[in-house]
């Protein structure tokens, strides 16, 4: 059975509890669909961190799932601290003095001996999708809201061909009368 969308979103954000994390990780190594979904969530998070504007092709579904999951988590945490505290038994004065001191010593020892977490090298941001378009009036490459097009105004007999590397248009130039071949590259 697949983990819920909320669990995948929390896992991708590093906000899922220990057992949940182990469960999702174990599932992910066997399930390509969940793996891809987590990868996409990672990519969107990292991209957002490196940009000061929204990407053109945001998949809002996973983001919505992450937000909902975080809200649920917050509500659950609120419920934990919600009920009024019951009447407590009195604490002996010796314990009231010794316990905070002991706690301070323990925290000091822990801070000294615990290895610092290694700094994660920032991963390269995921480049956005590049789109090439070929139509009788122009060939264009577009990415991140920026575009570069070669036009053939007034051209006759336009033919074009495409590959993953670029788009090419061939036409008879209306002014020069020469066959002209324009090419935009997706590199």
């Amino acid at each position, binding site marked *: 059975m697949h983990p819920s969308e909320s669990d995948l979103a929390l896992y991708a954000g590093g906000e899922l509890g220990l057992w949940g994390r182990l469960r999702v990780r174990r599932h992910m190594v066997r399930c390509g669909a969940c793996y*891809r979904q987590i*990868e*996409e969530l990672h*990519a969107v998070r990292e991209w957002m961190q490196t940009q000061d504007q929204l990407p053109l092709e945001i998949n809002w579904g996973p983001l919505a799932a992450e937000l909902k999951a975080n809200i649920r988590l917050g509500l659950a945490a609120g419920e934990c601290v919600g009920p009024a505290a019951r009447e407590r038994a009195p604490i002996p004065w010796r314990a009231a003095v010794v316990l905070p001191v002991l706690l301070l010593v323990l925290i000091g020892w822990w801070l000294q001996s615990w290895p610092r977490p290694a700094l994660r090298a920032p991963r390269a941001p*995921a*480049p*956005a*999708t*590049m*789109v*090439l*378009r*070929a*139509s*009788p009036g*122009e060939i*264009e*490459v*577009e*990415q*991140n*809201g*920026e*575009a*570069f*097009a*070669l*036009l*053939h*105004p007034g051209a*006759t*007999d*336009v*033919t*074009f*061909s*495409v*590959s*993953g*590397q670029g*788009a090419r248009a*061939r036409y*008879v*130039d209306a*002014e*020069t*009368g*020469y*066959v*002209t*071949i*324009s*090419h*935009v*590259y*997706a*590199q």
Partner: protein
Amino acid sequence: MRNRLGVVVFGAALAAGAQPGVTNPPSSFKINFPADSPVALVSADWGESRTNTLGGAVVVELHAALSLRNSSQGRIRGVTLLVLAQDVAPGGKASVSVPSLDIRPGETFPVRLDMRLLRPLRGGSGPLVAIDLDGVLFDDLTFYGPNRLNSRRSMTVWELEAKRDRRHFRSILEAQGPEGLRKEILASLARRDERANLDVQVTRRGRATAVVAEGEREVQFAFLRFPEAPLEPVSGLAHVSGGEARAPRVEVLNRSDRPVHYFEISWIIRDRQGREFLAGSVPALDPALKLAPGQKSQIFEDASLKFSRAPGQPVAIDGLTGFVSQVEFSDGAIWIPSRAALADPRLQRVLAPSPEEQRLSDLYRRRGLGALVSELKKY
């Protein structure tokens, strides 16, 4: 080494052409030709270029008419200009080639450049667009230029096609006279008019997370095999969903006696009504490819291609057919299909004519049979 022949600042011209809402451009275009270039810039007219602001974006339209002179001793058959806009546009690399030329030493010829840049409105300095010379091909197939875009190969292919097609039309003229030539050219024009073009959108993802589309299926390529071709396509498939074909891959066998450095497989798509369209090509991308005789190699393209007859009218892909369209050997020699191979009726319906056949038929359409006959007798 480079001598800036012309740094063209178009501020005044653009301001003159300004309309309400038109902003003055912050930068300039420049043209760089090497000092020993066989073509020289005579003039550049940027008169119709302009910029517009659209919300938070600026649109730059560049319309340039360049006049170039053949300053070499050879006859120029083709020129490729490299257009760079890398600071302001994705990829930012384009080229404009003019093949099928016959420019004698000292003659001038025009080249037009029309382009549009769309970018966020932000400050910046330096040229928006730089125009460099990528290569010049002469009638003896010698080449000059930095060849950053492999324009040597492209222009050599066009020139070989031009020689092949001129030979074909000359042989018809000799065997059947001017009326036979007219019939042949009219058949070529009719094929051009009947051939349907598709709008194509190619998507390249930044990482390998292509999401499998619903209903996607693997479609095996059928192949058109040319007995004379140095490569034989062995197998191939693409993932197809509706009007979209993703990640085409093709395996070929080198059956020639020479190592192959580069090749291209062109492919045709068939829709559910049985109509066929030329879809594009899958090139071999490995620059170090050296496919030895008897060996196999696989080419793969990590891209998704969406075909439509018009915006919002996707083509339902039903079948794929591939064929070897060009091969470059390690010694630089190039193979292209012969006219006999291209006479296959399926290919004739979908293939565009060569640039030279396009030019000759256009010449016939504009200036008549006499002009075509004298053109064929020139060289």
